[in-house]
């Protein structure tokens, strides 16, 4: 090997050494930055966990408060309805006082009074969304609003026609809460 070549080799190996030293330094640096990053992530995770716990507790409290509010509302939800019922009771009271007064009322007068009180009661029901289901004898049976309790076999009615209303039905805010109980013709 010539001396020139040897020098070349020497310089090359020196360069190599330098680069490996460079690598060593940059490795140390990257480990430091990774440690920093891990530390940062740890902190972020701890913070996120804490936030999650807080949000969970908030949601829990919110749910409890809603349930409590709901219970409280439910307790007094009937108030306006019951207030209307009181007037109804008042009127019955007045009617009874009159009847007990010893004065002789004709049966027609008493019936008229009953009809008025009933009308008033139905007005209260309808004010609160409860309406009577309209049902005429001879109407076709419709399971959406009627319930068949009995069958009839009459020639003067069509098949599936209502021959008798056994109990009136009602809707509350357009939902059938009690279907009209009827007798249905089957030929």
């Amino acid at each position, binding site marked *: 090997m010539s001396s020139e070549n040897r020098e070349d080799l020497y310089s090359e190996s020196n360069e190599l050494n330098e680069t490996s030293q460079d690598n060593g330094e940059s490795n140390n640096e990257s480990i430091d930055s990774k440690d920093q990053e891990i530390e940062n992530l740890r902190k972020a995770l701890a913070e996120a966990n804490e936030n999650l716990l807080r949000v969970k507790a908030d949601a829990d409290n919110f749910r409890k408060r809603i349930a409590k509010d709901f219970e409280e509302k439910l307790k007094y939800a009937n108030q306006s309805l019951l207030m209307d019922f009181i007037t109804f009771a008042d009127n019955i009271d007045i009617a009874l006082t009159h009847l007990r007064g010893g004065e002789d009322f004709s049966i027609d007068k008493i019936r008229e009074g009953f009809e008025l009180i009933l009308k008033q009661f139905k007005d209260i029901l309808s004010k609160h969304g409860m309406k009577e289901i309209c049902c005429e004898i001879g109407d076709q049976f419709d399971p959406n609003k009627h*319930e068949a309790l009995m069958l009839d076999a009459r020639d003067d009615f069509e098949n599936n026609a209502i021959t008798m209303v056994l109990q009136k039905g009602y809707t509350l805010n357009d939902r059938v809460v009690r279907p009209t109980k009827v007798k249905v013709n089957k030929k």
Partner: protein
Amino acid sequence: MGKVIGIDLGTTNSVVAVMENGQPKVIINSEGMTTTPSVVAFTDSGERLVGMLAKRQSITNHENTIFSIKRLIGRKYDASEVLKARSLLPYKIVPADNNDAWVEVRGKKYSPQEISAMILQKLKKNS
């Protein structure tokens, strides 16, 4: 994550509940009730009624109103339970090709599973 639901497909009534915040909540049906009668009816006009509506018209249409169908699921036509059901139920119970107990309504045969599926569809529509 999808919602967790639970269905009780009962002989007489069926109920659906859904898990909300770890608590089961029963779903209310279109009639405002928590339970839906396990009844399917086929009316004169070819309409299919399920639940309360089917129950309300049952006496006017008893041959085409199917209830207690769960008793027939997976049973053979000549099984003792089916023999008993045949004597009690007003609708027509017929043997299928494999001798399973099926029902026949307005000339069409249905398997008990199909009838149950109609009830499940109604429950699904509500929820």
